[in-house]
Every structure is written in C-alpha cells, then in structure tokens.
C-alpha cells in the first residue's frame, strides 16, 4: 500500500496551519472591502490559542454526546483533508476513500455538530441544528451531481484519479459540462461553509445564525476545536474545488521537491484567488431569508443537471 | 346385507323413535347414534364402491357410485356434528324460554328425516324419485327453519318454501322432459327412468328436448342450490333457522341440490357433448361468487354474512365443475368436503354468540367477544381462517387446485376472476370478524350467562377432521375422489 508517512505528516500540518489563515484572510479582506480596518489575517490563530487556554463551562443538561462531538467534528474534517490532493497527486489517503468518503465524513461531522447543538436544551442550538441539517440536505444532491459529472468523465470516485484525468485534458476545463459543474459546486461551497448569502459567519443575531447557533453553548478548548474544525472543513472544500475542478499546476506522483514547491505556490495562488471571489460574493450580496435558500440551492442543482446533460451530449 | 337400504332406514327409524321417547337427552342421543351408524355404513360403502365401482339394490332402484358415496360421507358427518351440537343448544334455549319442548321434539324428529331425504337423493337411481326426495328435504327443512315461531323465521320459511317449491316444480318439468326424451326414444314400452339407463342411451336422446329440460332443471335445482340470482331465499333461511339447522342447510343441503343438478349436467353433456350445460354452470357460478362479495363487505348480521360466504363457495364449486378439467373437478369435490367441515363450525359458533348476546347484529354484539367466549372465538377464528382460504387448512389447497387447474385449461380470465372474488370476500369476512371477535368489551354490556364450553365437542370434531384431512388425504379417499371426478368429467 502506497502510504507515504512524510507526505501524510506534511499535509496534516498544512491543513492545520493553513485553515485558520484562510478564514483570517477572508475576514480581513472583507473588512477592507467594507472600508473597515478589520482584524489581522493571523488573528484567528490567537483566538484559537485563547480558547484553548480558557476554562470550560458545560451545560448541566448536556450529556456525553456534547463532549464527544468536538473531537468528531475536528477529526473528520482533518481526515477528509488528507483524502483531497493539495499539493501533489495522489492525496496521501486517497486509497482510504474518494469523494464519497469525503462527503460521508463531512456528513458525520455535521451529524454530531447538530446533535451537540440540541444537547444543551437551548432553543438556539435546536434552531441551528434544524437549519443546518435542512440546508445540508438540500445542498447534498447538487453536490453529488456536480461531483458525478466529473467523476463520470474520469470513470472513478477517487479524487486523485479525477484530478489526473482533468489534468490530462486541459481543454476539458472549457468543456461546458465542467464549467457548469464548477459553478454548481461553488454555490454548494458557499452553503456548506456557512457563507453569505446562506449563513453569516460574523453574526450572533439569533434569527440569522445557523452555524454559530450550534456553538453557542461551547467554550474553551471545545470551542477551539469546533472553530478550527470548521475552518479546516472550509479549506478542504475549497481545495476540493480547486484541485479537482481546476487542477492547474498540481504536481504529479513522485514529483521532485522543486515541483512540489511550484505546485504549492500555484495552490496558494489559486486559494487566495478563490478566497477573493468568496469575499466579493459575500460583500456584494445580502443574506437570503431562510426559505429563499432552497431556491439558490435548486439553482445549483439545475446547473449540475445541465452539466450532466451536456456531458451526456459531448460523449 | 342391504347396505344402501340400511343407510336410508336407520335415520328414519331414529326420527320415528323420537316421536315416542320423552327425555330430550335421549332424542339427541338417538340422532347422534343414527348418524354415527350411517357414517360407519358410509365408510363401508366407500370400500365396496372402490371394489365394485357401483353398488346397487332393489333391482337398481338404489344405486351408489363414487360420487354418491362421497356425498353420503358428507351428509353423515355434518348431520352427526349437528345432532352432537343440537342437544345442549336446545336445552339452553328451552331454559331461556326461547322455545317450547314440543318444538324441540319436532326438531329431533325432523332432522333425521331431513338427513334421510338427502340420503335418498344421492342414492336414488330413478330421477323422478330423486326429485321427490329433494322436495322431501325441502319440506322437512322448511319446518325446521320456522322452528322458532318468530315473525322473521316465519318470513324466512315462507320465502324458502315458496321459492323452493316453485323452483322444484320447474325442476319437475325438466325431469318430465327428460323422461319424454327417453320415451320418444322407444315409443312402445314404458322405459326405465334410471339415471344409469339414461346414461347408457344418452347418445340417442333428442338434444333439443334435453336442452329444454336442462334449462328447467337448472333453474329448479339451481334455486335449491342457491345459485344467484335464485339465491334470494338463502340468506334469510340460513340466518333465521336455528343454528344447527343452518349448519345442515349450509353444510350439505346446498350441495345435495347441486348433486342433483350435476346428475343432469352429466347426462346433458353426455348427450349433447358440447359446453351447453357447462356454460350455464360457469356463468351462474361466477355470478354467484361476485354477487356474494358486496353483501359480505357491508353485512350487518353475522349469520347472513356466513350464508353469503356459502353462496360464494357454492359458486366456486360450480365454476370448478364447469372448467371441466380433471384437476378442477377434483378440486371442486375436495372443496365441497372441506367446506362441509368448515361452515357448520362457524354456524355453531354463531349459535353460541347468539345465545350469549341475544342478537346477531354486529353492532349489538360489539367488540371483544373473545373476552366472553374465548374457546368459541378460538374455534370460530380457526374456522374463519379456513373459510377465507388460508393454509394450513384444506380450502386453501382446493381453491389453489381449482385456480391452477383453470390456468392449466388455458382459462386464465376465469382464474383471475376467481382470485378477485375470493380476495374481496376475504377482506369482508376478515374485517367484520376482527371487529366483533377481538377488542375490549364496552362497559356495562349484558353478557349474562356465557357458557364457555358449549358445543365445543361438535366444533372440535369438525375442525379436527378438517386439519387432519388438510394434511393427509388417505389413499382410498383420493381414489374415490378421482373416480367421482371421472364420473363428472365423463371419463370413467
């Protein structure tokens, strides 16, 4: 079995360190775009460290599920990160699971997140879980369909395989099927990472928050794990989008150190570009009402279906 | 020894004795004795028939082939169960003042005569005598139907006798025509009116006349056998008669009329040798099955529902005969037997329920009978499951046999129709019985004197027999049935 421990270690590290930075950067740029000074990009590191040091307050109603959830959320998102190719092909753990496993693991994390929201008997948590599960449920088919479109062309569910096949024919990037799928996946990404127009990561206004509502009762290191896990999940999804749908500059198997460096730079560039897009979208759009969100996601679904149809036509 | 004669004489003697003996227990015992004797004789008869093919007495005045032997068995079993059940039943009625001792005597006198009449029907070789015997059964049973001198029972009896004897008059007309055909055949002498003789000359009979005859006979005996649309007396009589009588009417009397019809059917088929009579049986059989189901679905009265289910079973049996493949005929005969073992149990149970709740209306009986009469409900439930054709009971087997035989004979449509009709009645009976048998009693209902063990011996006997014969048909019985099927199918 081709498990490269070094690669594994490096990618884990990358994930852990890069994730907070990305969300920091996005926060920062957003502030800039809104003519605020905003927190420094690396502020998120300090937040996490602070959370880790702080004492914990646990609700008297909460059961062991409440204490179990943060680990699941954190570890699942970390593990999915290892199944997605970041700087080199194949991803360290591509053998252990492809896109289906990634989606499944993220769902597992979400499952426990939602449970932990319900556990402390607070109405906010319940509301958060309910909305989270609802939105993810209607986001799921669009996500799957988008991935199917690329997976079918690659004839595999293995992310690295898909990336390779996409790489092998670069003009496929202009294939309408591909573009449509890309768009669909981007919308899903916004929903899954709790971004405007679906959710507002910055708010604690009870009627609008989704993700934050579930975390209300968390404090101290559990909160740290949750936040960190969330940012890792966001990074993973972005990476998925970048390296699977747009694998430009991605280093192939057994690449030299230099090649790896190049691909790392390319990856970071793409990442920043994507973050920029996200920032623009977030600032130029207002948050949708909850019952408008399905319309957005069904748009994504339709896009994915179109992608499928066109790929059917172009075969 | 005069086997057939003694089968006829024993019940008659028992009936006449009941005129003189006083205590009701003795009368009941006499009935049981008589019919257990005939049952024994019937078994002997079966063995002789298997050996000799046809048993005859008094210069072929009486004769028994496989078919009649089979019917003899059915009559004896059902009558035996009835007289087993009747004793306690009427004791309780007398105690409750529902009926006078004199009427009870009437029952004990008439029931054996009723039985004897049916024996004569199946044993008589002469078609005219057969007609007379059928009329005799009708007359004896009508008095039994009217036994409770209530308004409803009188009404039922009146409809029964009017429709019945009118039908029988038509049947007589038909019989006369058949005889006329025989005479036309040899204008000199007075020909014998024996079925066996007619069969031997069947080929030479005037087909037109026979067709005409069969129309009349069909309407006539069809009325007595309760084929729709001549069935209208059936639910009334079966529901208003005392439960033992209902059991006999539903259990055998219908089948006896059907037997008489079959004799002519065989004759006609042998003469015309086309599907003329068969098409009658098929059409009216299916019609009966389908007419019965809606009445079951929305029935409000327990015994009427049972009566309609009998109607449906008779229809099924007719269809079985009409499909006329050895398999279906065999299945139909089998169905006769299993039905004869099943239906009386249901009527006995209905009798117990009637005596406990003083009504047969579903809404009066209400849910939760099981809490009051557990044993009765258990036996009734089993019998009901058998009646709606669930394994391991034999009716499932016979129904499957008929249906598959029909498909084998490429009669797919008919088989499908049968399945549909059975399905509908299944739903009806299941729903109705679940409604009353299961559940909790409503508070403050008068379940006065519940006697848990009433009539259990009779019911247990029949159910035991049913289960036994459902898993094991002894070789002689199978042989008998195959011979009977051969007789009906026209291939000896």
């Amino acid at each position: 079995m081709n498990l490269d421990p070094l690669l594994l270690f490096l990618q884990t590290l990358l994930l852990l360190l890069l994730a907070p930075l990305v969300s920091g950067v996005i926060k920062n740029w957003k502030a800039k775009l809104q003519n605020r000074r905003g927190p420094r990009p690396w502020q998120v590191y300090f937040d996490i460290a602070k959370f880790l040091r702080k004492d914990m307050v646990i609700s008297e109603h909460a059961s062991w599920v409440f204490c179990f959830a943060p680990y699941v959320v954190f570890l699942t998102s970390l593990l999915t990160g290892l199944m997605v190719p970041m700087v080199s092909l194949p991803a360290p753990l591509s053998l252990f699971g492809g896109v289906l496993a990634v989606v499944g693991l993220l769902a597992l994390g979400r499952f426990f997140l939602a449970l932990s929201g319900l556990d402390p008997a607070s109405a906010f948590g319940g509301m958060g879980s309910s909305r989270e599960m609802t939105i993810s449920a209607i986001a799921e088919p669009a996500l799957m369909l988008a991935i199917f479109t690329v997976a079918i062309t690659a004839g595999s569910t293995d992310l690295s395989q898909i990336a390779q096949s996409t790489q092998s024919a670069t003009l496929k990037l202009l294939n309408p099927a591909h573009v449509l799928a890309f768009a669909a996946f981007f919308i899903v990404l916004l929903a899954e990472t709790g971004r405007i127009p679906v959710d507002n990561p910055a708010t604690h206004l009870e009627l609008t928050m989704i993700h934050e509502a579930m975390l209300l009762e968390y404090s101290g290191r559990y909160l740290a794990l949750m936040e960190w896990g969330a940012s890792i999940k966001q990074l993973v999804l972005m990476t998925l989008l970048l390296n699977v749908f747009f694998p430009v500059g991605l280093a192939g198997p057994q690449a030299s150190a230099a090649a790896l460096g190049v691909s790392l730079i390319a990856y970071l560039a793409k990442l920043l570009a994507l973050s920029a897009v996200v920032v623009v979208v977030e600032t130029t759009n207002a948050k949708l009402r909850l019952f408008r969100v399905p319309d957005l996601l069904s748009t994504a679904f339709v896009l994915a279906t179109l992608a499928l149809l066109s790929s059917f036509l172009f075969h | 020894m005069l086997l057939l004669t003694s089968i006829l004489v024993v019940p008659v003697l028992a009936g006449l004795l009941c005129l003189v003996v006083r205590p009701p227990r003795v009368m009941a015992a006499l009935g049981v004795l008589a019919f257990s004797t005939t049952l024994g004789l019937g078994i002997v008869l079966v063995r002789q028939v298997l050996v000799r093919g046809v048993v005859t007495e008094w210069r072929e005045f009486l004769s028994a082939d496989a078919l009649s032997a089979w019917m003899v068995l059915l009559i004896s079993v059902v009558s035996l169960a009835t007289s087993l059940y009747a004793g306690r039943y009427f004791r309780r009625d007398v105690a409750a003042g529902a009926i006078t001792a004199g009427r009870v005597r009437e029952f004990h006198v008439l029931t054996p005569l009723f039985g004897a009449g049916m024996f004569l029907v199946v044993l008589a070789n002469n078609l005219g005598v057969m007609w007379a015997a059928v009329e005799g059964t009708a007359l004896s049973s009508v008095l039994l139907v009217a036994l409770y001198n209530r308004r409803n029972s009188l009404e039922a009896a009146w409809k029964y006798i009017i429709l019945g004897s009118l039908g029988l008059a038509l049947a007589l007309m038909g019989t006369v025509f058949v005889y006329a055909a025989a005479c036309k055949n040899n204008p000199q002498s007075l020909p014998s009116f024996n079925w066996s003789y007619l069969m031997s000359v069947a080929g030479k009979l005037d087909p037109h006349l026979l067709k005409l005859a069969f129309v009349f006979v069909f309407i006539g005996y069809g009325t007595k056998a309760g084929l729709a649309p001549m069935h209208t007396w059936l639910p009334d009589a079966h529901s208003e008669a005392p439960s033992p009588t209902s059991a006999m009417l539903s259990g055998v009397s219908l089948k006896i009329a059907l037997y008489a019809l079959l004799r002519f059917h065989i004759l006609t088929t042998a003469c015309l040798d086309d599907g003329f009579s068969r098409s009658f049986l098929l059409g009216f059989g299916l019609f009966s099955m389908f007419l019965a189901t809606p009445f079951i679905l929305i029935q409000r009265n327990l015994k009427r529902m049972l009566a309609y289910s009998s109607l449906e079973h008779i229809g099924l049996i007719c269809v079985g005969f009409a499909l006329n493949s050895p398999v279906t005929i065999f299945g139909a005969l089998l169905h006769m037997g299993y039905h004869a073992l099943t239906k009386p149990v249901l009527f006995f149970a209905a009798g117990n329920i009637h005596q406990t709740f003083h009504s047969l209306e579903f809404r009066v009986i209400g849910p939760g009978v099981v809490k009051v009469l557990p044993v009765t409900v258990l036996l009734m439930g089993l019998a009901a499951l058998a009646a709606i054709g669930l394994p391991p009971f034999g009716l499932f087997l016979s129904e499957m046999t008929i249906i598959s035989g029909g498909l084998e004979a490429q009669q797919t449509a008919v088989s499908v129709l049968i399945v549909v009709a059975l399905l509908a009645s299944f739903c009806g009976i299941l729903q109705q019985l679940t409604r009353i048998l299961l559940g909790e009693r409503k508070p403050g209902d008068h379940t006065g004197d519940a006697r848990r063990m009433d009539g259990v011996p009779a019911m247990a006997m029949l159910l035991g027999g049913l289960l036994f014969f459902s898993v094991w048909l002894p070789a002689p019985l199978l042989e008998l049935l195959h011979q009977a099927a051969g007789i009906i199918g026209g291939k000896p």
Partner: protein
Amino acid sequence: MAALMLVVQLLMIAQRMLLTNIRLFAIQSFFLAAIAAVVAYHHNASHVYVVAVLTLIGKVIFLPWLLTRLVNRIQIHEEIEPLFSPPTSMLICGGLTLLGYVVARPFTSLERLGNNTLAIALTLLLTGFFLMINRRKALTQVLALLTVENGVMLAAVALTTYGMPLVVELGIFFDVLVAVMVLGILVYRIRENFASMDTSKLNQLKG
C-alpha cells in the same frame, strides 16, 4: 280439453275473489283428471287411471276442501290487490302464451293427443308463475303454485307415452299433498303472527 285448462287459468288471473279462485282451481284440476283418463283409455294404460283418480281425489276434492276450510278458519275474504292491473296482466299472459307456443313448436312431433298440449302445459306453467308474482296474498300464491303443478302434470301426461312410472307419480302426488299441508300450516302461523296474509308485509329481512 287442454285449451279449457288454459281458459280457466286466464279466468283465475282475471278473478279476484279468493273462494272463486279455489273453485276455478278445482275445475282446472278436474279437466286435468279428465285428460289423464282419456289418455289412459286411449292407450288402455291401467296406472294412468290411477293418476286420474288420484288427481280427482286430491286436487279436485281434497285440496279445495282443505283450502276453503283454511279460508273460513282465518276469516279472509277480502279483495286481493294484484301487482299489475287486470288488463296489463292479461296482456302479459298473452305474451307468455305466445312464448309457450314458440318454445313448444319444435316438439309437436312427440305429441300424443295433438292440438299442442305441450304448448298449453308450458303456458300454464308460465302463467301460473306470473300469477304467483302478481298476487300478494299468501293463499293465492299457494293456489298459483298448484296451477303450476297442474301444468307440469299436464306435460307429464301429454308428452310421455304412458305417463310417468307409478312410483314417480305417487311420489309426486304425495309430495304435493304434503307441500300444501306445510304451506297451510305456515299460512296459519303467519296469519297468527302478522294478523294478515299480505306477503308484502313479509319484508323485514333485507341485505
């Protein structure tokens, strides 16, 4: 002579009074007996004489006497209100007669005493049947039933060379007697229970 039976039958349908009906029935049965006698004389078949005599005793003397007695016993002389008005029923009977002839046509060959007795027998049967439908009183229904029987017997005498075998004749005869007695008993009980003989009151059993 058979035609006369038919005439009587039609008279019965037109007639409304109960006792008169009984007498008419007696007359009809007398004609039947006569026909039987003629047949017997014609083929000098002894046992058909028996039939004639039995009919004479039973249907001409005994049954009418029994029914009359019953009528007097339960005190009903009131009018019979039929289902159809007399003209209509007459028309219907005409139709039935026609049908009888149509049905009987193929069999004229086997008629012993000519002038299509079979047709008349059939017509008697059908009109008797109609009479039964048409009348509501229990007793008239009994009468109608008996006329049907007459039709059958006529056929029996007319169609077959020497009538039916004696056993059968006897059996039938006694069955008819018993039937009438049973019917009488029932009529009596009904009268007791319903204080009426109107069978249209017998409609409690539905569904």
